[in-house]
């Protein structure tokens, strides 16, 4: 089973984690100003790259904290994990 390194607890088995989809999707600054197209983009449209992807995980059966990870969607290899208050590591670039 794949091990995922929780930034707080260290490497744990994948079954302890819950997937949260694309990371760094900010809530709109001024929701009332959004057009229907903007809302559609915010609610339904997410990146779906074949390659490195910045995404959220929650250590649901452990410390229950959310964190971010860069994972290659082709190999499922985790390239980086980082806390929510840390910036996205520069070396991976894409998301």
């Amino acid at each position: 089973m794949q091990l995922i390194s929780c930034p707080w607890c260290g490497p744990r088995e994948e079954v302890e984690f819950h997937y949260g989809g694309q990371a760094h999707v900010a809530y709109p600054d001024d929701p009332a100003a959004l057009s229907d197209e903007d809302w559609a983009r915010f609610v339904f449209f997410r990146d779906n790259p074949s390659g490195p992807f910045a995404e959220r995980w929650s250590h649901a059966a452990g410390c229950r904290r959310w964190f971010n990870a860069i994972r290659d969607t082709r190999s499922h290899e985790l390239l980086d994990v980082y806390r929510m208050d840390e910036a996205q590591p520069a070396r991976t670039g894409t998301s």
Partner: protein
Amino acid sequence: MTTDRRTAVPPGADLPDHPSFLWPNPDPAKSYDVVIVGGGGHGLATAYYLAKVHGITNVAVLDKGWLAGGNMARNTTIIRSNYLWDESSGIYEHSLKLWENLEAELDYPILFDQRGVLNLAHSLQDVRDSVRRVNANRLNGIDAEWVDADGVQELCPIVNVSPDVRYPVLGATYQPRAGIAKHDYVAWGYARAAAAMGVDLIQNCEVTGIDTVGGRVRGVRTTRGRVAAGKVALCAAGHSSVLAAMAGLRLPVQSHPLQALVSELLEPVHPTVVMSNAVHVYVSQAHKGELVMGAGIDSYNGYGQRGSFHIIERQMAAALELFPIFARAHLLRTWAGIVDVSPDASPIVGLTPIDGLYLNCGWGTGGFKATPGLGDCFAHTVAKDKPHQFNEPFTLERFTTGALVDEHGAAAVAH
């Protein structure tokens, strides 16, 4: 190529012989009226109906690998049309009607077998939702009935209907006209018929770019050179986001691994198709004798055509609870396909903001059953530059207008 190839034993049925010569293997020409990207079931069926119904034969189907080697080779071959909403009933029932005549249409055996499908209900809410869906189906002229636990056992005696399990079987919806088909033969039948009408089926030809000029598509760039095209139709399932991005188009789909497995060959024990949303498994027995079981999707995005083992473990646990006699069957093989899941569990089929570029994606876990219906409707969309009535509701714009077709209930664990 002659059309008189129909035999009792279809070519390839006596494996390991592979039918190598059902279609030619041409090099790409400089230009085509229509280029279809993706040589799976949907791409091949679209090419077939473009040629057959609309007389458009200057068509190429490009595939980055070999024909029907992606999800068309990986699905669990379940065919049914018992979806909840009118929009879905339209396209899935259209498809089922085409399935019923497809062997004759293609003049090729596809082992289409209407053995019926049971969708089990395990809780009071399941029962209510199922009965509602049966009623909705009947209003749409689709065969559907509600059967209680005894009825389930009568239709499929090996299902454990004991109340003494974690998720007891309280009943099921039953669609007698549903069934399975041999997925490879379906692809080969379409490929052979399309090639005979002049369609170029080009393998090992990966699309690396889509050329547009002034908002209109001009062609595609491939690993085998540039191919000009009047129209480009995308049929790439799990890779749709990657392809659409080449034309600057963003899609509301997420690609996930979807796993399935087979047992070794067994005597016939399973007379129908059983699906259970609550315990996450769907099972049938293929003609050769292997039990074919599908799981739910892996939660994370993935393009790797493999998933996590704990999903298989959970799927096997679910299967054993429903079918205790499977306990001594051996697992032979597991695999995954990449499915493009849309927010409302319904497909996205139609025009795009780019003239001449047509989109067919978002079928998620259930595209196989739609193969003939989608092919017919998508060919119409491409030929007429206007959606067919059955794919008209499934626009990309619905995510902006809010006119979603929420089929999570009927699609559920998988289609």
